[in-house]
């Protein structure tokens, strides 16, 4: 039997495979049928959980709060109910951190961003969510983003991820504000050919994000690997303090200074690091990535 692939698992099954067996307790579960009040007017079906599962469970024996987006329901998009469940779990993370009960919150993001049919509610919820992430961190919580789903992590979701204390990605994950299709729609295929999926992943994919230091860990596409990485990341708390913000600022400035004229992940690897490297081809291995990470000061830092 093949191992369970994170990419393929549903949100519910990702949580089940991530946490200690049978430890998960869902808040506002599907049986309560708290669904989107807005989709009906678009003649669209609702989901009993509005495409997000939130609750608490145990990871390696320790209490954690969890939210998992279902990338297959409307692209994991953030609507009013969906967004409120996410904000709720983040505010709970702040409360539990302040009370000293747990410092751990896991966000299994899998989203195209704000749900257009309830755009204003989704946009506002995304803004509430980023603030809630930061407030939870200020209270001492680690908020770990786990990315490797079908929908990627785009739009408001990408800003939520950027505010997290730790980011774990698989090579199937994509992280960016505007996706290739959106950029192509507004700026044309010359700017971003969305059909060229290899280019999409060289630009937004897990491997490139890891090399640039946009992610803290690149893991295999299995629930076991995500679990291990989440446990490891939780051991490196990153309180949101002034010095860290200043270090992040310097880090992002340095990235622009070094790579600001690049437009493709392959260019960064080829031109700046290894002229002969054929980044993004299929014989590029995890070892190659590790070798590059070791060479790239950008990729190892604590400035997030």
């Amino acid at each position, binding site marked *: 039997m093949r191992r369970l692939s994170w990419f393929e698992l549903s949100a519910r099954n990702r949580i089940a495979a991530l946490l200690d067996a049978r430890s998960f307790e869902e808040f506002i579960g599907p049986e309560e049928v708290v669904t989107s009040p807005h989709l009906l007017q678009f003649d669209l079906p609702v989901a009993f959980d509005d495409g997000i599962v939130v609750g608490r469970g145990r990871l390696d024996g320790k209490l954690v709060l969890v939210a998992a987006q279902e990338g297959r329901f409307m692209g994991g998009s953030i609507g009013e109910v969906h967004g409120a469940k996410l904000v709720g779990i983040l505010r709970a993370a702040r409360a539990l951190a302040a009370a000293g009960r747990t410092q751990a919150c896991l966000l299994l993001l899998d989203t195209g961003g704000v749900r257009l049919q309830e755009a204003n509610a989704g946009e506002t919820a995304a803004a509430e969510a980023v603030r809630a992430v930061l407030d939870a961190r200020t209270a001492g919580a680690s908020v770990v983003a786990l990315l490797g789903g079908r929908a990627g992590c785009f739009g408001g979701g990408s800003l939520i991820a950027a505010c997290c204390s730790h980011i774990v990605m698989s090579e199937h994950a994509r992280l960016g504000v505007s996706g290739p299709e959106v950029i192509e729609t507004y700026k044309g295929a010359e700017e971003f050919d969305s059909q060229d*999926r290899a280019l999409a992943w060289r630009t937004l994919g897990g491997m490139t994000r890891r090399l640039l230091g946009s992610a803290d860990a690149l893991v295999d596409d299995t629930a076991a690997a995500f679990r291990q990485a989440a446990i490891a990341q939780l051991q490196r708390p990153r309180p949101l303090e002034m010095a860290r913000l200043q270090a992040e600022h310097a880090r992002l400035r340095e990235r622009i200074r070094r790579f600001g004229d690049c437009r493709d992940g392959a260019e960064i690897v080829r031109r700046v690091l290894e002229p002969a490297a054929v980044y993004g081809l299929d014989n590029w291995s995890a070892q190659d990535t590790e070798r590059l990470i070791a060479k790239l000061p950008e990729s190892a830092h604590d400035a997030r």
Partner: protein
Amino acid sequence: MSSRDARLARAAPFSQGKVVAAADVTALLEAVLTPGDRVCVEGDNQKQADYLARALARCSSEKVHDLHMVQSGIVLPEHLDVFDRGIAARLDCSYSAPQGARIARMLRARHIQLGSLHTYLELFARYFIDLTPDVALIAAVSADSNGNLYTGPNTEDTPTIVEAVACKGGVVIAQVNEIVPQVPRVDIPGDRVHFVTRTQQPFYVEPLFTRDPAGITETQILMAMLAIKGIYAPYGVRRLNHGIGFDTAAIELLLPTYADALGLKGSICTHWALNPHPTLIPAIEAGWVKQIHCFGSEVGMEDYVAARPQIFFTGVGGTLRSNRALCQTAGLYACDLFIGSTLQMDLQGNSSTVTRTRIAGFGGAPNMGSDPRGRRHFSEAWLKAGAESRPAQSTALPRGRKLVVQIVESFGESMEPTFVERLAAVEIAEELGLPIPPVMIYGDDVTHVITENGIANLLLCRSPEEREQAIRGVAGYTEVGRQRDRRAFQQLRERGVVRLPEDLDIDPLDADRTMLAAGSIRDLVRGSGGLYRPPARFRNY
């Protein structure tokens, strides 16, 4: 002066030796061609002589008109533009799926005089009898200045076309990706090639046989389990061909897992007439496959194939040597099973990929999916199928049967039922005045129908009524399925004519994606040791 000499003389101003500048190709074609010529533009469901197709479409219709196109594929827009522009008038072809909607419109508007829709092998056969082209426009990877051609892994139709044209006084014009001092291997000898032109872009090849395992559904896995346990195992199918589709891809990916657990390794699926399907990589790597002969190649599989010469047919230099005509023949005569999908099937098992708005042609499926009555060698699978088709008390001579399996979901895209009372192909034929409806596989060739509901064994049916009820019996919740006679269904089930998953001890709930030997393109790449290089459109990493 022979007709060829006259053509070559007219073309001389546009070439230096055999080499023609790309910009001069249209002028050369105008010089070589005469009105009414039979012309083959090479192209099938994979490779395309695309530059030459465009060059032909740019010809002046004053100079070049009323051509009779005799070619495997109507695939590129230019293949139909020549009809719109008055360059060509008549058409005999085989495969037209990518232009299916436009060709249907043009036939309705009588913009094309259609001869016949053929199978590949059938059209090749006619190249040697009554449809020999006067001029062939072909594609190869490289040429030397003498016209020797290297076709790379995508040899496909080229040798057949060239044989027919060059040996019967015609002219062969090749587009090549490069001109080199010495070609790596001679796929086509230079004395059969009259002109070569180097193009800026390599000739186009469609990755038609790549199925992303991520797209395989639980239903397709269930059907694959039914195929393996319900057909491959009992008949001991060693020599076979798979069609394109997610269902057959699922079978390929279940060989090293599910079929292995059933203890079938070595006793099924050892010898293939098949393109290098990426989804067969896990089975090959697990030692299931003895050898594979290919119609064509598959984009991204070149290095993998070259590294597995013990499995694939390769030439000097190590790359794949494919040959469509020979592989079609192999599929027809030397395989015991064909399995493929279709869009519509009627109650006698006739099937078609034609819809009201699309005419897809045939390609090779009707050859693969028919019982060759000229076959005389025997195998266990062939004899068993033959025996099942004869009534118990029959005094007829013993004969074998090829297993022709249709694997379909009872509903297709947009909830269109697969099972229908009357094929759209029949209506189209009436409307266009075609003498025979474009049926892909005739019902009397079909031996089994697999759906998510079970298997209908048509070999065991003894009357048209039984066939109908057996097909209804696996037609699920389609209108046709819901109208089945419950009593007849029970009787067929008791006789093993219809077998449901539970009759084969298969629990549909076991049909799980974790059973697939690879769940993604990435897994296939890994399984190939990095040798498989999928086209960008299939990547998600």
